[in-house]
């Protein structure tokens, strides 16, 4: 079961996230759980595989919003980075960046 302590250790800005959920801890933790399983992660991966940069951007952008809302900082930086690159439709190898995002995501999932 995920706890606020674990999230803090993971590096999330728990105060900010809680504040945004009106200090409702149960809601916050539930939403963080939902975020870790967000289908946009898979959508991002699929789009990048097919080199569909536009679709990848939409997925990354949606993820960025969610992650920022919940102040899951370790994920936010990386996702923000990939979002901007995709916004400009940068032609590059996204594998490394994706790896970093996935590893941070797995770390989060392990806290559940």
């Amino acid at each position, binding site marked *: 079961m995920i706890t606020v302590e674990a999230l803090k250790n993971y590096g999330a800005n728990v105060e900010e996230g809680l504040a945004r959920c009106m200090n409702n801890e149960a809601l916050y933790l539930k939403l963080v759980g939902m975020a870790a399983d967000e289908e946009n992660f898979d959508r991002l991966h699929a789009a990048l595989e097919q080199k569909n940069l536009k679709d990848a951007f939409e997925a990354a*952008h949606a993820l960025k919003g969610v992650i*920022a*809302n919940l102040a899951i900082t370790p994920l936010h930086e990386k996702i923000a980075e990939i979002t901007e690159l995709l916004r400009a439709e940068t032609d590059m190898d996204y594998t490394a960046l994706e790896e970093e995002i996935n590893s941070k995501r797995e770390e989060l999932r392990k806290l559940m």
Partner: protein
Amino acid sequence: MFGKNFGLNEETMHIVEEIGRHMPGGFFIYKAEGNEELIYANNSVIKIFGCDNLEDFKQLTGYKFKGMVHPDDYQSVVKSVDKQIEESDENLDHVEYRIIRKDGEIRWVDDYGHYTDTIGYGGIYYVFLSDITEAYKKKEMKEKRSEQALREALEVAEAANKAKTVFLSNMSHEIRTPMNAIIGLDSLALKNEALDDVTRGYLEKIGESARHLLELINDILDMSRIESGRMVLKKEEFSFRSMLEQINVLVMTQCNDKGLKYECKVKGGVSEYYIGDDMKLKQILVNILSNAIKFTDAPGNVNLTIERKSVYEDKTTLEFIISDTGIGMDESFIPKIFDTFSQENGSKNNKYGSTGLGMAITKNIVDIMNGTISVDSKKGVGTAFTIVITLNNSKHEENGSVNNSFDETKNLILDGSITENSHKISNNEKGRASLDGKNILLAEDVLINAEIMEALLGVKNLNVHHASNGRKALDMFCESAEYYYDAILMDIRMPEMDGLEAASLIRKTERNDSKSIPIIAMTANAFDEDVQNSVQVGMNAHLSKPVEPEKLYRTLEELIWEAEKKKQGGIYL
């Protein structure tokens, strides 16, 4: 020629072969269904494809239509033919496409075909084919050459324009120095009380002409600066109130002199401070106001109305309307009004003399500010100019929140006969509505974000109705009773129908609340063009994600209050 159910079959085929054998142009027939297999291709077709005989041709193309067309062109040929068939049965369908000859060379062909039903072969296409490569190449060359010529001509023209601008700029400076001397000395001379009337008259006329010349030179300088792209806008904080006061003093004097009535009205929470270029903004307003005064005779009215149209995170859009009861303009002149040197009555003797550049300069400045300017006029009735400008918000008033904003209604009624100015200032403060129990339509596709918003709004006891995309939001709005929803929170990026489209359609619905319901855009994008787009579709405000609770509440309170007041009618805010 051929009718439906043409009696073509294996037995009658030889007639076609006979015709085709000696035909100078290409002719072939292929099945409309299945794999478009050819039934017949005459010698000319075989030659067009660079083959020696039918066997060769069959090998090259597989004896199918698809095998004849260049692979990159096949799709578009099919599309074009289908479209032409749909449109009309009257003509032969015409397409041009490439083929790859046996020797590998790419050739362009002209294809005229038609469909017909036959007894023996079912549905077929019969086609007349010619090799048009030479003519095609010639056409391409010609197009390239004229493009090139145009490009060069454009470069030459631009260079000439720049040269002219630099020249003007230098000359203007040179000319201004002696001009100032003339004006200065003329003023000094006029101070001499011992002047006789005749000489005084001469000196006054000299002064007028000199000032007119100076104005002309300044305008030319402005134009040249604009054209050479050297007009740069300031981005500094300025006091909107002071700017307005300066304008009003200037205008009041001119109106007094002419016996005109002037009124300045400010509506809707205009702030005291903004960030932008006050000098240029003043130039625009003064220019148009001066024109209004110039073209209005006593007894007449000149009005300036300023209204805050919308406000966002960091920008505010203001609408300025300058109207007069002057001589107005002919409808045919209105499109030319912003051209340089255009005046409706251009004769040298007209009493409204001016430089002819003022409007052009004004429009250019408005354009550089990314604003809009439009005019409405009726000859003999009057004219109204509408200018919409977006300024950046100043943090100056952040501390005092809305209470420090510009007075709700500040009427300056200036009548030529009154020596004192009567200022009517009413202190209606920007109001805030209570959010308790209000209904909000929330359009947001990401569930997590929607949950957060619902939690936020729940704190203030708002009833949240959630739509997961723009289309659903539109449907929910249309199915609701009028005025049921107090506000709409619209995410911009959503699948199926995005927030901009949904907002635009909501505004277009025929309900009493379509135009008045507050629509607030929510987006992670604070980029200018997103904000501009929100304005254009009629959204009232813009919050950036992640949404700050206090900003959210305040925006809702203010917009709902404004909407309620409007609904009550009468009280103009």
